[in-house]
Structures are given as structure tokens and as C-alpha cells.
């Protein structure tokens, strides 16, 4: 389903529309919730709150308005609200200090993380597997080939194709002069 179709399906509020948007964006929502909250259980709560709030607000999603930035705004707000709520748990009296201010985590990189996660989720499973092994696993092409039981040349071609696609989707973040 293309982006417009996805937004239209979600706007109806039908379960299928919610399911389709969840499948496309839940990974990205979870990523930024983890970056803000640093806790898987809280991040899962944030994902749940995000999709419920998005569903409640889907009538305000104007036709033609892109879905992803709209959902990002809702997700970031949900995660920050949970972060602040957790930060407001009362401290023992002897630790209270009026001069202490709890700051939310830095928002630097949240938008970039969102965009990268969406780009990764748009790769094919085979491409994503190679990129994951290379960057997250720290493996060389040879090691990846051994792990996947495929020729090194196959790994190289998948890696090359995957990184070209990533660069194409993320070039605007690096302000690339094409």
C-alpha cells in the first residue's frame, strides 16, 4: 500500500488501517521511544499510547498531508510525556532539592533515528540482514557470508545495493549535493 493509501486507510479508523500503519511504522515509533526512555517496557507503553492517540486524532489528518511526520510528532510527544511522568516520581525528602531540574533527554538525533529506521524497514529482508550484521554486528563481508552460508560476492552485492538505497532515502539528512 502506498503512503496515500495508508493514510486514507488509517483515516477511516478501521482495524485494518490501524494494522497497516502499525506494520509500517511501529518499528520507527519503538526506536524513538527507546531513545527517549531507554527502557523496553516503557517504550512499549509509548508505542501503545502513540497508536491510540493517532487513532483518536485520525480525523484531523488532512488529505494529502504526509502520515510519517504527523505520526512522528505524536510518538515523540507520547515518549516525552512518559519520560516526564517517570521523572516526577517523588524523591525521598532528604534528596529533594528545589534547585534540581530534571531535563528531558536531548532531542538531537531523534528525527534522524526515525528516518533511518523507516529507511531500514523499507529495505528487503535480505538487504536489511546484511546491513544489520555489518553495522550492529560489526562483521566483515567474509564473516557475514559464513554466517549466512552464501558466497562473499552475494553479500557484497546485497550490501552495495542496500547502502545505495539507504543513501538515496537518507541523502537529505546529510544535505548531500547530488
Amino acid at each position: 500500500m502506498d503512503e496515500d493509501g495508508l493514510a486514507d486507510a488509517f483515516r477511516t479508523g478501521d482495524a485494518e488501517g490501524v494494522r497497516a500503519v502499525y506494520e509500517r511504522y511501529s518499528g520507527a515509533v519503538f526506536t524513538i521511544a527507546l531513545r527517549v526512555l531507554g527502557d523496553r517496557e516503557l517504550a512499549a507503553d509509548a508505542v501503545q499510547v502513540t497508536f491510540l492517540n493517532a487513532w483518536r486524532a485520525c480525523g484531523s489528518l488532512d488529505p494529502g498531508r504526509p502520515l510519517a511526520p504527523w505520526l512522528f510528532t505524536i510518538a515523540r510527544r507520547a515518549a516525552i510525556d512518559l519520560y516526564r511522568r517517570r521523572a516526577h516520581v517523588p524523591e525521598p525528602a532528604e534528596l529533594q532539592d528545589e534547585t534540581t531540574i530534571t531535563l528531558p533527554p536531548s532531542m538531537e538525533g531523534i528525527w534522524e533515528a526515525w528516518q533511518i529506521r523507516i529507511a531500514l524497514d523499507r529495505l528487503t529482508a535480505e538487504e536489511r540482514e546484511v546491513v544489520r550484521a555489518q553495522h550492529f554486528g560489526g562483521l566483515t563481508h567474509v564473516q557475514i557470508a559464513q554466517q549466512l552460508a552464501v558466497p562473499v560476492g552475494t553479500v557484497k552485492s546485497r550490501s552495495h545495493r542496500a547502502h545505495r538505497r539507504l543513501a538515496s532515502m537518507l541523502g537529505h539528512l546529510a544535505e548531500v549535493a547530488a
Partner: protein
Amino acid sequence: MTPPEWLAGYLEQGVQMPGMDAPDGATADAARRLRALLASPDLWSQPPRGLLDQITASIGSERIALTGPPPAAITRPAANPARAANPARAANPARAANPARAANPARAANPARAANAANAAAKDSRRRTRMRRSAGAAAALLAAAAVVIGIVVTRGPVTTDVVLAGTRLAPAATAVAKLHATPSGLAIELDVSGLPPSPPGSYYQAWMKGPHGLVTIGTFHMRGGPGAVELWSAVTLAGYPTITVTREREDGNPASSGQVVLTSRP
């Protein structure tokens, strides 16, 4: 758009590819940041399995709450005269008399429309407040009629099923919570199996958990064997999406022991 070759090469190799023009400092910094993010575990983590089911269940529950229980898929004679005689319910004949309103799936499926309906209902309510004195007698008559006719729906049809799994404290236990939206709150039928009877001096306590905390929805002991337990909740599944059951001691402490034996959290 032609893929920016140098970025593809940088992301893949971590170095600038030979023969490419060097990017300016800001662009190179951004590229380094992107590559560093690719190694972050946050970028590769998946939300828990079953979360989508919880979300769709919460939406289903909230949809019913917004639009009112569907018409009498389950109807019962008016077993509760106090509820049947409630003038506030009786004073809303439009709701009771228009099953198409609640039965219209398109209406129920659109929360924005449901919210508009709620706003309209609020306006109606204010208008009714102004008319309440003069309408009081009529409301009482309608309430009495409802009792006589016996068509008051005391519980809507099953709206949402939530599956609970046993934890390591009760690995054989399972349960299904059937949530019914009612005008008074959520009626929850918890069908439990594999959970041993609680020993004397202890009991089980059910909770709904959400970002705002824990709300207890009832206690039970299972000493009569497996079966269904009836629980009630004043909070919604949307706000408190996780249902848990804990093992408690009769020690006068109302707080949760934290000893979870059943949970809907995947």
C-alpha cells in the same frame, strides 16, 4: 533522484570513496552521525509481540465507549430496577430508541465522527438541563415504562477478548478476559484455568495497568476449582491496557505484592 554515491560509499565503508569530491564539514559530520546511528541497538529493536493485538483491543474498547454499547445482541429482562429507573438513562430516549446509531459500523469506526457525536450529545445534554425541570415528570414516566416493558440492556455483547499467560510463578495458568462495555464501566469475565487455589491467608487480585498506574478490579481465590470470575473496572482498556493477576497475602497492605501470576503483557 540519483543516489548520492559518496554517502552510499561512506555508509558502507566508513571512509570516503576514492575519486569523490570531499563534502563540506557539516555534511561529513551528518554522514558520520548517520553511520553511528546504524550501529545503535535502538535502530534494530522490535516492539514486543502481541502489542498490536493490545492496541486493536484497546481501540475496539474505546470505540464502544465512544459510541455506546451496541444494541441488544444480549438483552435481559430488567433485573435491576434501580438502574432501569435511573431518570438520566430514561431521559435519553433518542439513544435508547435509535439502535441504528450504535449499530452503524461506519459511525463506530470513525473516532472523529464519534467525537463529534459526543460533542453534539453534550450540547443536547446542556439543552436538556435547561428543560429538565419541565421534563422531569415525563422522564419518570419513561423510566417506569422501561421497567414495565423490560427492555433495558444491562450488558452489551462481548466487545474485547484479552488473553493472559501464566508467569514463572504459575506457568500452567492461562486466562481469557472478556470485556463488556456497560454504562457503569467495564464488566470483565475472567475465565481462568491452570491457576491453583490460593492457600488460606492469601488471595488473587486482578489489576489494570497503564501509564497512570495500577487500578484493582477485584479479588478471588479459585478454591472452587477452575472457572469464570466476574470483575469490574471503572477505567478503560485504552488507558490501562495491561491486565495482570497477582498473588496477595491477607496482611492489610492494599498495595500490589508484585507477585504476578498472570499477565496480558506479551
